[in-house]
């Protein structure tokens, strides 16, 4: 009988692997760190329960941010959706709500995200393709038609144009007669990761950060239930980085935003409670659970130790999760249902506040109604049938999970201090640091698949001959023309003097510290378009240019 892990490794394990070697010489985490065959009490020798975990709803929130977690209510099931025009997307939202989805998540098309109206030359070919085209309040009214905005929370994946889309949402809610104190939701509003990985930036960093802090300041008083930012690791992970890099790069961005808000005169505890986070969930089932748990502990430390937070709400890391789009395969697409199920299970065991499950056909095209339904049902089956949601943080105390949580945390802190040495997230971006790190990790993953160190079922092993794609979603190609017509009609019938006056005010405020939000609301209420507002701001602020790293 072995008396310790070392004893066992030297004896029983060595003898067994001497006879039959492991199926791989080395097992690794996503960052390439070696994983032992077994974990035990020795791995948690210095480990202190109260310091590392505590209890749900209490510092350092490792076990979850709410005291009741999923016993109170399940996570918000929030499928990211949007395509074509506002009318079609409104129909998809009503379908999803009728199927039991509990919150909306709006995908905008690329022109809307980059501040071009549907009739702009830059928008050609892109209108309504990856999300819904929203150019004016008329579109936002259609998008939210028949959906009570006081009762439903809406998440909007929008960054460079986030303040304008928020202004549109607020204007639509006001038209419904809603009380703004009851309007809840989230805008992504995270520009730094756009420079690093996602690419829908418009303006240079300084005015972009100013718009973000304007949103923080305005929402604090006028839209108190709104999550003003969703600081996102998702897209950096999708671009190829590791779990620990995902955390570190995201917290570096968070620190940049908090510092900008403090410089603008806000107090951390005033806005800290409205910061939300957004993680990816990739395929390493246990490492991802550890990552979610580590993320809460890191943020609680940043909030208290760095920013002196006294308010627990500002120390809790609340997050949305999306399963890993980059883990989906175009080959044998039904296998993606299984991948997504495992990833969703990780997110639930990791204590997510809301969840998007990818549809099986998304490596091929936008999802169909049928595939989206399966994705939503996956969450419902986990929530109602699996029992995984019945006990809070059920994997706590597992030697491996705790050792892995500690390790992901340590790796993330190490990266974070490297970024601090460069002068922070923005300096790192300008030097191409995060971009290069992500590229390196992406290339390593690609090579590992090509040498079969990493098996991707159906892609580099267990390959079958496949015939045709399943039925794919297609966006109507005549949409661009219809949108051009409807914008021409809008520009002809609105009060163009009011539009010009609103744009003049925005131009004048661009060079000052005046909060932009009231001006944007005034402009969109006069049916000024997203492209017109961004056109003025482009003239005033210029545009960001990509840092080339390859």
């Amino acid at each position: 009988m072995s008396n310790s892990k070392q004893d066992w490794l030297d004896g029983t394990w060595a003898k067994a692997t001497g006879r039959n070697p492991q199926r791989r010489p080395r097992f690794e985490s996503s960052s390439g760190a070696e994983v032992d065959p077994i974990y035990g009490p020795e791995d948690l020798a210095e480990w202190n329960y109260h310091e590392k975990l505590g209890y749900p709803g209490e510092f350092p929130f490792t076990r979850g941010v709410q005291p009741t977690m999923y016993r109170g209510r399940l996570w918000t099931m929030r499928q990211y959706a949007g395509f074509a025009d506002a009318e079609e997307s409104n129909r998809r939202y009503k379908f999803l709500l009728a199927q039991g989805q509990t919150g909306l998540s709006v995908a905008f098309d690329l022109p809307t995200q980059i501040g071009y109206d549907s009739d702009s030359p830059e928008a050609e070919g892109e209108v309504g393709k990856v999300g819904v085209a929203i150019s004016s309040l008329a579109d936002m009214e259609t998008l939210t038609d028949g959906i009570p905005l006081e009762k439903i929370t809406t998440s909007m994946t929008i960054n460079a144009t986030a303040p304008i889309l928020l202004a549109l949402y607020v204007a639509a809610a006001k038209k419904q007669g809603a009380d703004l104190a009851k309007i809840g939701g989230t805008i992504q509003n995270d520009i730094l990761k756009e420079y690093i990985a996602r690419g829908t930036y418009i303006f240079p960093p300084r005015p972009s950060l100013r718009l973000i802090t304007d949103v923080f300041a305005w929402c604090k008083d006028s839209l108190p239930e709104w999550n003003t930012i969703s600081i996102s690791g998702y897209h950096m992970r999708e671009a190829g980085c590791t779990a620990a890099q995902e955390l570190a790069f995201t917290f570096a961005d968070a620190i940049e935003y908090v510092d900008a808000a403090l410089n603008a005169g806000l107090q951390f505890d005033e806005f800290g409670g409205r910061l939300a986070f957004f993680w990816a969930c990739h395929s390493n089932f246990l490492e991802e659970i550890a990552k979610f748990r580590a993320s809460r502990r890191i943020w609680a430390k940043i909030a208290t130790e760095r920013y002196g937070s006294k308010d627990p709400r500002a120390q809790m890391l609340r997050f949305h999760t999306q399963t890993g789009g980059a883990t989906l395969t175009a080959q044998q697409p039904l296998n993606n249902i299984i991948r997504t199920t495992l990833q969703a299970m990780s997110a639930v065991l990791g204590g997510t506040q809301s969840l998007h499950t990818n549809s099986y056909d998304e490596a091929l095209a936008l999802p169909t109604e049928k595939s989206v339904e399966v994705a939503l049902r996956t969450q419902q089956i986990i929530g109602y049938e699996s029992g995984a949601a019945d006990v809070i943080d059920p994997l706590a105390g597992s030697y491996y999970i705790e050792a892995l949580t500690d390790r992901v945390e340590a790796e993330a802190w190490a990266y974070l201090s490297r970024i601090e040495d460069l002068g922070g997230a923005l300096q790192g971006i300008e030097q191409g640091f995060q971009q290069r790190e992500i590229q390196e990790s992406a290339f390593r993953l690609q090579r590992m698949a090509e040498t079969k160190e990493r098996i991707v079922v159906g892609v580099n092993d267990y390959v079958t001959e496949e015939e045709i794609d399943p039925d794919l979603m297609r966006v109507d190609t005549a949409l661009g023309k219809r949108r051009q017509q409807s914008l021409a009609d809008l520009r002809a019938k609105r009060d163009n003097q009011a539009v010009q006056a609103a744009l003049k005010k925005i131009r004048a405020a661009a060079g000052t510290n005046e909060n932009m939000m009231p001006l944007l609301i005034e402009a969109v209420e006069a049916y000024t378009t997203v492209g017109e507002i961004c056109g003025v701001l482009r003239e005033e602020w210029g545009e960001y240019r990509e840092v080339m790293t390859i």
Partner: protein
Amino acid sequence: MADERPIRVLIAKPGLDGHDRGAKVVARALRDAGMEVIYTGIRQTPQMIAEAALQEDVQVVGLSILSGAHLELFPRVVEELKSRGVDDVLLFAGGIIPKDDITAIEAMGFKGVFGPGTDTNDIISFVKSNAPQRV
């Protein structure tokens, strides 16, 4: 005697999507295979891509797109290339491109369309065996 100068390749991202993981991985793999690779960065108009292909005197142009706008944007790139007299380059494409669209893309003059999960060695040998000789 065979031309032993390295093959020059332009990897470009037309349209507005920022998904550059695939483009960068392919650029890096072709470079590691000894080619000279110019990567344009994201959000390139068809004019910008054609101009870069002309200025950089490339033999190969690879387009990467994940926004679904390939059927609109690819023909415009081809047209801009032709209008600059660049009609002898090897064209290939990658991204989220439904199989149904491949015939149409091939008809525009693309010799290869590579979807998710492609082994970069396949792209390397494709480029090596199809790149036109320099004149």
